[in-house]
């Protein structure tokens, strides 16, 4: 049950990181749900790649699964990146602009 323990430990860690004040079961359940949503949706979305290439998608799904499980308290990381600071927002905005232009410009030829 090593995996289960890992999950349990990470959840305890989440509990500590989200809020310092007394916790109710709400917060923990919320964090768990968030965690599971992120993992499952990411993996399911990665499965969409099977339409492009089966082998590549298998590799990507496996890599993603390992990466997600080893970085387990994901929600604190998401919260940290989704903060209200203008600098973070601008960084992601410009990053997305670059990604969108590259993806669409080079993607047209391949898909």
């Amino acid at each position, binding site marked *: 049950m090593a995996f289960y323990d890992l999950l349990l430990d990470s959840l305890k860690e989440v509990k500590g990181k989200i809020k310092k004040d007394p916790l109710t079961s709400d917060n923990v359940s919320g964090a768990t749900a968030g965690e599971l949503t992120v993992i499952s949706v990411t993996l399911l979305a990665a499965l969409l790649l099977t339409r492009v290439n089966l082998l590549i998608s298998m590799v990507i799904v496996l890599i993603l699964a390992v990466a997600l499980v080893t970085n387990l308290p994901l929600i604190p990381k998401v919260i940290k990146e989704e*903060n*209200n*600071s*203008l*600098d973070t927002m*601008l*960084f992601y905005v*410009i990053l997305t602009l670059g990604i969108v232009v590259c993806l669409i410009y080079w993607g047209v030829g391949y898909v």
Partner: protein
Amino acid sequence: MIMDVQLASLFTSGALIVIGLYAAIFLDNIIKKIIGLSFIEEGVNLFLVALGYKLGGIVPIFLPGMTKSSFYANSAYPLPQALVLTSIVIGASTLAVMLALVMVLYKKHHTLSTKAMLGEDHE
């Protein structure tokens, strides 16, 4: 001529946009950030005007004494110019609102640093 005027103007507009984006991301002073944003606007407007340019063309204003066919053949494309007129005004008004907000926020935070003024809010 090394490069024709249209292409050179397009490159200039690209340079303005890149400089503006650089300022918006990397400069910490909020007023400089806003100046950078005004450069982005200016670059985009320049891009639009440069699209309508015609090498060796004439200004798209129909004056008495011109024949219609020669006017159509030679005039620059007037549509982008008409669009840019509106766009310039929008840019100026947006800039004015942003500067007004900066003035209000300066009274509260006493700094022009973006990190201090518009950082993560702790509630």
